[in-house]
């Protein structure tokens, strides 16, 4: 009798084990090949665009002050290395500070609103209202209030990045399986423990999709702040270059700006791999069955 039970057990464990080819973890030696497979399309596309750009300027179909050639842009980048680096540093500082403040504030507000229905009813309309106002229209006001230093740029960046963080943070905190919450209440856990061990981790996948949107918006916010009133930063460089009809420099600043956004996005992506590994492994699993 005991032997039949353990036989049945062994059989059931065997049959329920998933087949090895469904293992979502990629093997190490495949890693480079996987990246190549993933990214050859965008790389090829950018390469083709640059080629087209070069062709248009080399054939002089467009005047250089309207569209500088890739070589001119590259020269503007290299000849003004220190100048650009200094202003990039300023914009980076504003962006990162704004983004970090937006994360702290946004997550705090999301948590408060999820836990208090009346607070949500009070604050949500105001937050929505603040989101609907064009940020470019608020930026001059911030300059009047906070002067010409870093502060107004940081706060425009905060304002831009705040909304997606609040919305995704709230959606994430609400996404917890209600049965798990019933379960933790029978475990006698205090609300803080439940928050830390269940609600917060469960909210991370959604929060991170909001953070990715917010990261790119933070760069925009900082530059918009600089447009309104600044004597440093990439926004200032663009205004200067525009005044001098120095389109090569303008292009150089634009390229740096988008690189900054991409870099910030990539940092969030890497943080997501470390903090939400269960989500990442699921995604790779899905991708491998497609590819």
């Amino acid at each position, binding site marked *: 009798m005991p032997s039949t039970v353990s036989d049945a057990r062994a059989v059931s464990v065997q049959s*329920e084990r*998933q087949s090895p080819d469904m*293992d979502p973890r990629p093997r190490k030696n495949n890693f480079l090949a996987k990246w190549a497979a993933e990214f050859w399309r965008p790389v090829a596309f950018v390469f083709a665009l640059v080629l087209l750009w070069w062709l248009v300027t080399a054939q002089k179909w467009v005047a250089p002050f309207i569209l500088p050639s890739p070589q001119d842009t590259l020269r503007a980048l290299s000849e003004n290395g220190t100048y650009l680096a200094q202003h990039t540093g300023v914009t980076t500082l504003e962006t990162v500070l704004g983004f970090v403040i937006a994360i702290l504030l946004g997550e705090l507000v999301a948590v408060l609103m999820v836990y208090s229905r009346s607070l949500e009813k009070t604050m949500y309309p105001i937050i929505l209202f603040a989101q609907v106002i064009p940020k470019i229209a608020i930026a001059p006001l911030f300059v009047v209030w906070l002067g010409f230093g870093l502060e107004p740029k940081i706060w425009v960046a905060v304002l831009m990045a705040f909304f997606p963080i609040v919305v995704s943070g709230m959606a994430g905190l609400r996404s917890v399986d209600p049965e798990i919450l*019933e*379960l933790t209440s*029978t*475990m006698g856990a205090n609300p803080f*423990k439940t928050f830390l*061990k269940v609600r917060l981790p469960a909210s991370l996948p959604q929060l991170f999709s909001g953070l990715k949107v917010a990261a790119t918006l933070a760069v925009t916010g900082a530059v918009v702040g600089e447009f309104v009133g600044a004597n440093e930063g990439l926004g200032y460089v663009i205004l200067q270059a525009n005044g001098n009809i120095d389109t090569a420099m303008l292009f150089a600043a634009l390229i740096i700006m988008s690189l900054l956004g991409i870099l910030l996005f990539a940092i969030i992506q890497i943080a997501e791999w470390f903090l939400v590994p*269960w989500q990442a492994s699921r995604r790779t699993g899905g991708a491998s069955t497609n590819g």
Partner: protein
Amino acid sequence: MTALLHEKRVTTTQPVVTIENLNITYSTKRSRMTALDGINLNVEQGEFLSIAGPSGCGKSTLLKVVAGLTAATSGQAQLRGQQIKGPRRDIGYVFQRAALLEWRNVRGNILLQAEMRGMDKAKAARRADELIEMTGLGGFEKSFPHELSGGMQQRVSLCRALLHEPDVLLMDEPFGALDALTRERMNIELHRIWRETGTTVILVTHSVAEAVFLANRVVVMSARPGTILETLDVPLGSHRDYAATMEDPDFVRVSARVRELLGASHTAE
């Protein structure tokens, strides 16, 4: 089979769960809906009680009352002689869905119970090892929920519910989402685990075979408002072989009666 995992079988005559004249009514602005009506029920120490009934008869609500997750509108519900007022810590709960945390592996999911309760770590770890071994999860400790089949996930959920040696294990359609064959295997295993642990179990199920095979007593409920139609003893002994039980005259007789009662309640609907 002397390997009892814990010696909680105190010989008291007092039932573990006592329910007297329990009524549950949900009121909305427009209407009142009676979910449970005049339920009287005792569950004895070490007993396996199955509750069968049509969908929406309030079987799950009854479990939630015992867990302290739903309050009685009128009547009494007691756990070990104590009035049930709020969420109870001395129960284990298994839902139809395994409700596992996807960022924790098998071991981490089981130990959530210990962390939330602030149990002694070394003791909880030993207990988790025992349960992993007993439920056939050995070798899967580091697997994550999305790497496991439904049956394996439900085993993890069962381990989590048993970790703190609860007074009563509440199971709400635990195998309802599994295929028929896996379900049968899980029934055999649950029977063995119940025998090995001596835990008091209340199981809510749609399956007549499952209800009768596992239980000492089967409670059959009517459709809404949920009342107890009949309570049937299952005189089958505590060591049950699945195939032999299926053909046992007592099993066949009790199953037929349960089906009859469920059928009758359906036509009354």
